[in-house]
């Protein structure tokens, strides 16, 4: 177990998930009651939301690793994904195989769905109700807009401490 100083902040924390290494800014390490250095549950959730925002905010196909990650962080079962897309669970399982990707149309629908799940409790703090009309007709622009909203949310949360 790595021992760190109490309250240490890691300025650039590598987070190897969803098939890539993401750099998460200012990750705080804390101490458990027995002294074990840990990443708190709240900090882990923040890291996951930052990555989810980046994945969902791009109009590209979902990789199997990204789909698994988004399911994990939103507590979504593969059956739920299949129901949402009106496909069989076998289709979702197929997309989860190495080298496969979720088809683009389904990927974009899932990204919007997962983004809402990730930010569901904070939607009122975001400006998505003032979404420009032009953005609503273009999935790429919409996802980019949502990602920027997510970044603004993280900035505001950081300023608020």
């Amino acid at each position, binding site marked *: 177990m790595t021992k760190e100083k109490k309250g240490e902040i890691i300025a650039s924390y590598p987070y190897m998930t969803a098939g890539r290494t993401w750099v998460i800014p200012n990750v705080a390490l804390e101490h*458990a009651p027995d002294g*074990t250095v840990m990443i708190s549950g709240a900090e882990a959730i923040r890291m996951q939301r930052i990555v989810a925002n980046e994945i969902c905010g791009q109009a590209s196909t979902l990789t199997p690793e990204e789909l698994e990650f988004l399911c994990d962080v939103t507590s979504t*079962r593969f059956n739920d994904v299949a129901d949402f897309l009106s496909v069989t669970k076998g289709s979702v399982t197929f997309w989860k195989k190495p080298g496969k990707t979720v088809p683009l149309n389904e990927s974009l629908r899932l990204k919007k769905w997962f983004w809402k799940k990730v930010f569901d409790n904070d939607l009122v703090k975001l400006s998505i109700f003032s979404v420009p009309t032009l953005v609503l007709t273009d999935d790429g622009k919409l996802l980019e807009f949502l990602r920027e909203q997510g970044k603004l949310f993280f900035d505001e949360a950081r300023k608020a401490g």
Partner: protein
Amino acid sequence: MKDWLVKLKNLSLDKIAVAHEPMTPRYARAIDKRSYIIREGVYLGSRAIDFSSAIEVAIFAENPMGRRKSGFYSCFRIFYDSDKIPLLALVFCFYDGTESSPTIKSVEAAQAFAREGGFQ
């Protein structure tokens, strides 16, 4: 006492921490799978530790892709209050068959593995 898993399920995810280790894909999965393991997992046993107001439990969740793949074997250290209500849980062990960690595919195999680790 299987109710430790029930108590874990009642703990919000922001109270489920992960012991800090150098980052690897398996360590990241330990972070990412917390919710899945607690939601889908089977209680394997508990063991006392040399720290008052804490206990360790082992939990196993099968892989959502089926039994042909390694499941997720995980140990949680649960810190509780005077009424034995969990205040914080800490994931300190996570095996999924990667990075030379044990491959455990079934609940039965996980139970045997947990017993070897002192979980009753």
